[in-house]
């Protein structure tokens, strides 16, 4: 009896000693849990580096935004997630709107991320920018004729425009930002014009839009630039070029991939540390360049290929508007018959 008690005490002592032996920062056994819409191949290398540098482990799972948001809501206090990471501002807006994210004041994030790419109530921040703009076939389109997104609704583009399906959130966000700038009625007129100009039924993804332009099925299209970047890496001779479209009275539509700390985060400080780490330096550069996106942090260098596409004027409207008007955008696209 006594012996077993001694054994037990010894075990306890060893356990205590081992926990005392961990670094005084307390970081060693910390874990940040991330629910991510951004793919594994774009986040895992960064998380591994973060762990190597800080000792904080990152656990993550991926799925569609709508699904992860329902999951967060259902798990509530019992949930494990500290961070929700998405590839669209509207999705973050939705999560924040449902009270699933908490405000975080961070001098570092405020310094690194421009105000238009952050939630005005500090519940989420952008971590990379994704430009959605006009691409065209240089032999069949004179670049000087290209202007705004709205210009693509003009009759001279009849039968020459290719669009991706309006089911994709990237198009919904673009239209939502147009609604924010010029109202629903005007936006609907332009969207109707686009639909009237379609050369083919909308495509399932941006790659197909680019391929259709290259093959001559249409002359212009709207895509996220990184899709073109990826294709240019494989085929240098692709006859598709980027035009930096502006919105009337505003700049190019820059969506974000971003993240926010969850309402019931168990480890909000470590999650904040991860956000701050991702917003600066090499991590920020890698976060953007691994998918040929634009960094949010203006001090960070842009990938050379991406840089070769030239300078653009980004939209000055806060990206939060894309979430606020997303449902209205879907209705506009439905009414206009954009499938």
């Amino acid at each position, binding site marked *: 009896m006594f012996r077993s008690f001694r054994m037990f005490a010894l075990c306890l002592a060893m356990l205590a000693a081992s926990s005392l032996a961990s670094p005084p920062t307390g970081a060693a056994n910390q874990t940040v*849990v991330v629910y991510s*819409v951004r*793919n*594994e*191949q*774009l986040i895992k290398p960064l998380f591994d580096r973060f762990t190597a540098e800080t000792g904080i482990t990152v*656990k*993550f*799972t*991926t*799925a*569609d*935004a*709508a*699904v992860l948001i*329902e*999951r967060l*809501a*259902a*798990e*509530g206090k*019992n*949930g*494990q997630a500290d961070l929700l990471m998405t*590839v669209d501002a509207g999705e973050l807006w*939705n999560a924040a709107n449902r009270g699933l994210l908490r405000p975080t004041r961070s001098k570092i994030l405020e310094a690194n991320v421009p105000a238009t790419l952050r939630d005005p109530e500090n519940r989420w921040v952008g971590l990379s920018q994704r430009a959605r703009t006009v691409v065209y076939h240089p032999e069949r389109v004179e670049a000087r004729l290209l202007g705004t997104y709205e210009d693509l609704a003009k009759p001279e583009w009849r039968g020459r425009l290719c669009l991706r*399906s309006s*089911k994709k*959130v990237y198009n*919904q966000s673009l239209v939502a930002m147009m609604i924010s700038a010029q109202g629903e009625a005007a936006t609907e007129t332009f969207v109707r014009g686009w639909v009237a100009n379609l050369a*083919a*039924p*909308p*495509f*399932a*993804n*941006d*790659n*197909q839009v680019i*391929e*259709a332009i*290259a*093959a001559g*099925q249409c002359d212009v299209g709207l895509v996220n630039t*990184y*899709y073109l970047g*990826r294709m240019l890496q494989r085929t240098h001779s692709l006859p598709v070029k980027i035009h930096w479209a502006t919105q009337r009275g505003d700049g190019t539509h820059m969506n974000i991939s971003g993240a926010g700390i969850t309402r019931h985060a168990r480890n909000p400080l470590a999650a904040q540390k991860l956000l701050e780490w991702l917003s600066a330096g090499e991590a920020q550069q890698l976060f953007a360049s691994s*998918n040929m996106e634009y960094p949010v942090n203006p001090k960070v260098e842009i990938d050379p290929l991406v840089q070769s596409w030239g300078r653009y004027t980004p939209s000055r409207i806060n990206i939060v508007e894309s979430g606020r008007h*997303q*449902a209205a955008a*879907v*209705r506009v696209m*439905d*009414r206009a018959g954009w*499938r």
Partner: protein
Amino acid sequence: MQAPRRASLIIFLTAAPTLLVLAGLIGAWWSPAGDALQHQWRYLLPEATLNTVVLVVIVSAGSAILGTLLAALIALTEFPGRRFFSWALLLPLAMPGYVLAAVFAGSLDYASPLYTLIREQFGWQLASVRSLPGAALVLTLTLFPYVYLIAKVAFESAASRYTEAATLLGRTRLQATREILLPLATPAILAATALVAMETLADFGVVAALNVDTLTTTLYRAWYGMFSLVTAQQIAGFLVVIAVVLLMLEHRARSAVRFREYGGNAAHRQRLSAWQSAAALSFIGIILSSAFLWPTVHLISWAREHFATDIDSRYFGYLTRSLLLAGSGALVVVSVASVLAYARRSGPGVAGRLLAPVATSGYAIPGTVLAVGLYVPLTQTLPWLQGTLVILMIAYLARFLAVSHAPVSAGLARLPSAVDEAATLLGSSVGERLQRIHWPMLRGSVAAAFVLTFVDLMKELPITLLTRPFGFETLAVRVFELTAEGEWERAAVPSLVLVLVGLWPLKWLAGKMPHAS
């Protein structure tokens, strides 16, 4: 407890996971959803409903005809290479619909090399596969093996004496097949066609890749685009109603088929003449090349430059986890489906008529809606289930019960209850009856159920995606990760592994099936 009451209770229990999801869908009808549904009715739902109905009709009819023809050819005739094609025709099962759709969209559209060549050489403008007929074609090519497999089991276990008797009565082989074997196989064909119809109702991957608007895409539009899960659930409820009606019709039609038969030797296969064999082979060849061979070659060409960089030790993990999930999932689903089929047989009351179709209607609910519909109530009431495989298994059960139930119940339907009565009179126990009479006769059906479910689970995405534990990546999850931002070429690598691994259980099945020889 009385046998019928016990049967009702069992049916209720097997239906419980689906009922939980349905409760949420029904609840949605009483939830305030603003005017999202009205908006959808005005602009989307009429066309989407029409497209869905047309798609279900074409795909069901196409799969039923194609599957039955091929099954009859393989089961009732003899020609060179028949044994090989007997299992090779199952190969399209291994090809996920969303992958086939991507391959078709990449090669049968304006920008594809083939269309470009034809346009430049002949000046022809060919129709794009990104259309309703295109979606019907892709779905038929992925779903016909359900009918083929289940009908083949039925044909092969059909007794030769029927055909012999018919021949003695002066009927030709063709007449005998049409008048006797076809009615005998009808329950099986109907059950399989109902599966095809439900899978088509719930499909999102194929129609999204080809940009065809159906009820499913409309549902996701309301949820993902307008943030209205309630509207999505309302539309999903509509899908379930269609499915339950289909299943009840199927069950009625099946009960109307009076033929029952028992064991015996299988039919002698009729040897085809040289030109008949050539015709049969080219028919099978066309189907197999378009549904499997050509898409596989296409995937290889996509995957070529990524094999070296993408295949590493992680794939061992993806593969193991895929096999583990699909294997254990199929085991669970087949067991419960068999219990359900037996309960339904012994207690054909209200529960059997109404509750059993409900239990299997989960197959018509789009996977994501079903996954969320189960995950939300389960984690709220039993938070400790989070991150375990229990929720995953319950969700698999709710969604795939139909896939296992169809072949097993079709097999049971061929087993006359007189056999059981005779056995009971002879004083044999239930266990003895199951082991000595039922199992030998049902073996083929159970094996078919296992393989269909296994292959479906290998390809399954939404449920696995939502409920998997941290870091529990499978091949299907890997495909999702790579396609989420359109990296189809890279996604071809896990897709190929998925297809190739799917082959092994099919090969194994071919060995297990009761060969009529």
